[in-house]
């Protein structure tokens, strides 16, 4: 999540210069523009037929594009080399809270590459893609059964897009009911940044709701904030502090009583899938991040998929397209019918089929029994970390069990000269990807650790050993180990301030650079 706060670094604060461990296998690699050539190509194509005329007319390109090429061996080496500069879940523990970095089964990848999946066009006749629509229908059935809802829109392309979908449905429902004056959305302070951003995007005023001492939402605060101008509430459950909202049903009832709707951010569904159905809690809309909960890979930042389950009240406002079954024949309804309440399109075509097939493969592999076990394991793993670390790290809401992630604050680092950011960077030197830092915002110097069900007891014990040793070392005054970290990564700390102050967002040839100066 948000890991770019903390002490700015700079070229000037160099305190030591040590050889990077493993440098022999991690050479720095130039950019393609520095090693490629314009004369060659890594792709062979048949010669052009000189007898065929051109229909480009005056539009034919006259100027150079300026793109270098790498032949295939050069490309393999370039990308393999830079890939080795990345941390990944396959290579190590990635306890990034709120991001659900779980194992990505390779069967998913294999299935996504079947010609009957990868090589079908969204606009070829629907009679020729019945298997694809059936796959969407089957995945929709899983999502509705797991959430206890009766409608789902498959189209959103990521969690934030799903939020947009759900909130637009809420807005449309209010408009249809003559309630378009409702212009306020309640958002707890601990919410993901996407929640207020989505509400604001749709023209809503965001009203923050304070958390109680125990990290959960205060029902009374919600009730006090509800009036005839509130369109809905956006609530994450389990919440971003890693806690189940105990009063969620009472909150849902109050929201509905006030004529508003309940949007649930489903980012943390991994803690409860197969165990608790959000539909039973009174939600009206909830997105599900297939790339978190259902293991479609994160791919260095996407693509994702964010289907949204909808309550009966919001189902008529689902966006296009949606599937319809008539006996054996499946149809994707792609256009708005006369008098239909459906939102229009949120994007071209039919959503993220490549992600659907991966998610369905994962669900079928786990089965409903396995998904429930996975959720319990994720919760068990997080509580085990909490139990084994709470004497050295302060869990601000530690007197209750956490869900699938455990939240610590930085109070035990106080006076050491070591910040959450420094601790995180020191974890890199120990071979771990840092946890989510400085989020949620309701806790000082937050450290949000999500182990997922994919980690073994052995891995957790090693991690616990490292985290204990780090805290002890910080308290013992070995500050440089932290403030200079990472020392053993492919790079030392990067100067983010410099990057933002005078942005260089594109490679320029050295001569061009000179001319620009």
């Amino acid at each position: 999540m948000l890991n770019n706060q903390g002490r700015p670094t700079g070229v000037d604060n160099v305190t030591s210069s040590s050889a990077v461990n493993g440098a022999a296998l991690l050479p720095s690699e130039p950019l393609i523009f520095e090693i490629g050539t314009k004369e060659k190509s890594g792709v062979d194509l048949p010669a052009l037929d000189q007898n065929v005329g051109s229909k480009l007319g005056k539009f034919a390109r006259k100027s150079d594009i300026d793109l270098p090429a790498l032949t295939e061996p050069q490309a393999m080496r370039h990308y393999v080399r830079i890939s080795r500069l990345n941390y990944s879940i396959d290579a190590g523990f990635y306890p990034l809270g709120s991001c659900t970095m779980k194992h990505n089964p390779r069967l998913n990848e294999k299935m996504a590459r079947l010609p009957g999946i990868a090589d079908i066009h969204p606009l070829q006749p629907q009679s020729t893609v019945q298997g694809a629509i059936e796959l969407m229908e089957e995945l929709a059935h899983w999502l509705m059964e797991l959430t206890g809802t009766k409608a789902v829109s498959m189209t959103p392309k990521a969690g934030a897009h799903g939020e947009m979908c759900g909130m637009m449905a809420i807005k449309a429902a209010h408009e249809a009911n003559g309630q378009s004056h409702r212009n306020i959305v309640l958002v707890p302070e601990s919410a993901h940044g996407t929640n207020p951003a989505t509400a604001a995007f749709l023209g809503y005023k965001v009203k923050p709701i304070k958390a109680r001492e125990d990290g959960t939402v205060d029902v009374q605060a919600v009730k006090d904030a509800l009036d005839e101008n509130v369109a809905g509430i956006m609530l994450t459950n389990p919440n971003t502090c890693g806690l189940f909202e105990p009063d969620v049903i009472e909150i849902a009832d109050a929201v509905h009583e006030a004529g508003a709707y309940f949007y649930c951010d489903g980012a943390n569904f991994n803690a409860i899938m197969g165990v608790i159905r959000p539909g039973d809690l009174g939600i009206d809309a909830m997105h599900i991040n297939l790339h978190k909960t259902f293991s479609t890979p994160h791919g260095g930042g996407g693509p994702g998929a964010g289907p949204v389950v909808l309550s009966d009240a919001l189902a008529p406002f689902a966006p296009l397209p949606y599937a319809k079954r008539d006996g054996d024949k499946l149809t994707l309804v792609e256009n708005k019918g006369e008098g239909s309440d459906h939102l229009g399109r949120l994007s071209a075509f039919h959503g993220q089929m490549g992600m659907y097939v991966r998610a369905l493969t994962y669900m079928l592999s786990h089965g409903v029994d396995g998904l429930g076990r996975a959720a319990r394991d994720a919760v068990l793993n997080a509580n085990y970390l909490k139990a084994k670390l709470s004497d050295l790290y302060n869990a601000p809401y530690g007197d209750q069990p956490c869900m699938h992630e455990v939240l610590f604050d930085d109070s035990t680092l106080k006076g050491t000269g070591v910040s959450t950011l420094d601790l995180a960077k020191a974890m890199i030197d120990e071979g771990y990807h840092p946890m989510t830092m400085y989020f949620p915002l309701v806790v000082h110097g937050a450290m949000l650790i999500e182990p997922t069900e994919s980690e073994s007891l052995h891995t957790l014990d090693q991690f616990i050993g490292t985290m204990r040793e780090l805290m002890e070392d910080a308290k013992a005054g070995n500050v440089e180990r932290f403030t200079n970290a990472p020392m053993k990564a492919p790079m030392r700390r990067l100067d983010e301030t410099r990057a933002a102050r005078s942005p260089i967002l594109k490679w320029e040839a050295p001569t061009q650079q000179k001319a620009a100066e």
Partner: protein
Amino acid sequence: MRYLPNSDQDRQVMRDAIGIKSDDELFVRVPKKVFDTAKPDLPDHQPEFAVEAHIRQLARKNRAGGDGPFFVGAGAYRHHVPASVDHLIQRSEFLTAYTPYQPEISQGTLQMLFEFQTQVANLTGMEVANASLYDGSTAAMEAVLMARRLKKRDGVVVSGGLHPQYRDTIATYLGKDPAFKCMDADPQAQEDIIAQIDDSTACVVVQSPDFYGNLRDLRPIAEAAHEKGALLIAVFTEVVSLGAIESPGAQGADIVVGEGQSIGNPLTFGGPYVGLMATHPNLVRQMPGRVCGETVDAEGNRGFVLTLSTREQHIRRDKATSNICTNSGLCALAFSIHMSLLGEKGIEHLALLNHQQAVKTADALSKIDGVEVLNSYFFNEFTVKLPKAAAPIVEALAEKNILAGVPVSRLEPGKKELENLLVIAATELTSDADIDALTNALKEVI
């Protein structure tokens, strides 16, 4: 349960350490009446081969592009993806990494994004590009909102040549805004969009090659827009075209957005794809999405970071430029690797090959009695007017295992004047035999 590493003994060790007897105690704050009560109507876990058999059985019901002649385009295109591209994007380090928030251990993704941004900027003729958006249609929508923020004006004029589903996507976000003006469907690039630009216009949205395949001259539109203080948003759905035609940047576009699927990414029924967005440096601070920038590390070595994040939702919350969090990283990687393999010569050759096969197809079809090619200039896609409704003809040809193209009526239903129009695309994968097959079969069914 092959994905769960802990044994029952391991779990017991953990329960003992936590001080609980059963996992259920961890869910103590969940209201009793909703805890573990439902029995979903879903199967239990299955071995890998059983799952594979099930998915294969679904996939077999679909007619794959490679199973016969294929002329479907209209925003997604069937191109060859080199084997090395798919191999490289499946490397664990790319596939199973998160967003590069820890730059010291994410330089692979970050360097790739910096290279990607440069490729996209050069290809579109712009100075800056972002690290990708969901797809072309949402990129177009984001560009419209970006232009409105920059100009502090509401007026949006959309060309009748814009992909109808892109237009509909923008329309969904803008709602019933009276400042949103869509030109009528314009299959022959005859509209007078310049007449619609006035002092309240924030942006004009024009696609080239357009939905019907026409190449459009952006220069006069850019000039007219700039004269009124408005921005030109240039859209493309076929990025390969930029290897053959003058870039939108060279024609005066202010924001260029488009679909990057054609390079490196398979069709996959419409997603995931990769939205491209490029612009001028002075407009960057209102640009949505992630951006990667160059910097140095504590030892002065060149490195890359995500930057300008003060625009983004995780910092700005309700004041962010967009609610976007996830982008299309792995698809951007596939794009970038494929583009690196192609290079300048390769993309130009590929583009001209696409054009050549489309010209051949158009020439062959125009010789059929009653079939008229509407376009004067096109890239790898064009529109034909048939003597009767296109949709049933496409179905009839599909029966003969020929996927003939996209009937315009599928995206523009109920418009009588568009009913007979068929949009046909050819790529480097279209063979001369495919063209013969389409021509002969079309003769039979009309």
